[in-house]
């Protein structure tokens, strides 16, 4: 198992009622495993099927592998500018 934390922002932080979530998943962990685990949390059911996850400050692909210590963040649709 690998333990890690995912930062949440804006509407997604509101939906899940937290700015950070701690997860533990069987190694090797992929991005889609993380987003599926977030969607299984209370409030997570309204997340899109493939929400955007950033890994080490870059948008990650669903099949990317998560390493221990990676910076993870779930990104709602961007609305800057």
């Amino acid at each position, binding site marked *: 198992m690998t333990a890690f934390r995912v*930062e949440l*922002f*804006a*509407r997604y932080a*509101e*939906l899940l009622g937290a700015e950070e979530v701690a997860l533990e998943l069987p190694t090797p962990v992929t991005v889609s495993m993380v987003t599926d685990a977030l969607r299984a949390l209370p409030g997570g059911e*309204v997340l899109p099927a493939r929400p955007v996850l*950033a890994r080490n*400050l*870059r948008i990650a692909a669903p099949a990317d592998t998560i390493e221990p210590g990676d*910076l993870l*963040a779930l*990104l*709602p*649709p*961007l*609305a*800057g*500018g």
Partner: protein
Amino acid sequence: MAALTTEPIDQTALGALVLRPGYGAVTSFVGHVRNHHGGRSVDRLCYSAYHQMAERECAAIAEEAMTRWEVVVAVRHRLGDLVVGDIAVAVAIGSAHRAEGFAACRFVIEEVKRRVPIWKHEHYADGTSAWVDPTAGVERSESEGP
């Protein structure tokens, strides 16, 4: 220089940052908070960001522009509470030639909107609020009532 700020953005100061003795052209784009969105009357709004990634993306966008064109780039995005008319985002491009300045300015503002992890929570005149989702129009916030 940090791209994100909670202080009001000073366009003249930003333009001065990209001025070089041999560069006569400064092209800029400034986005102000509008009084309406999606047919609703906007009172104020709040910008938040994934700070570390947003700074990284702004720096990367500026680098890309400076690689593609012979320009100097400055970008600022405001965070926190803003009212109608406030500057939300500003881009200034210093260059020797106009064509490069316009191309780089357009590129930077488009990329900032496309890539920088910033979110906008709008508060409307009728007391409601919503997170803005440019991919789907305006979503009603779950946390605040109509």
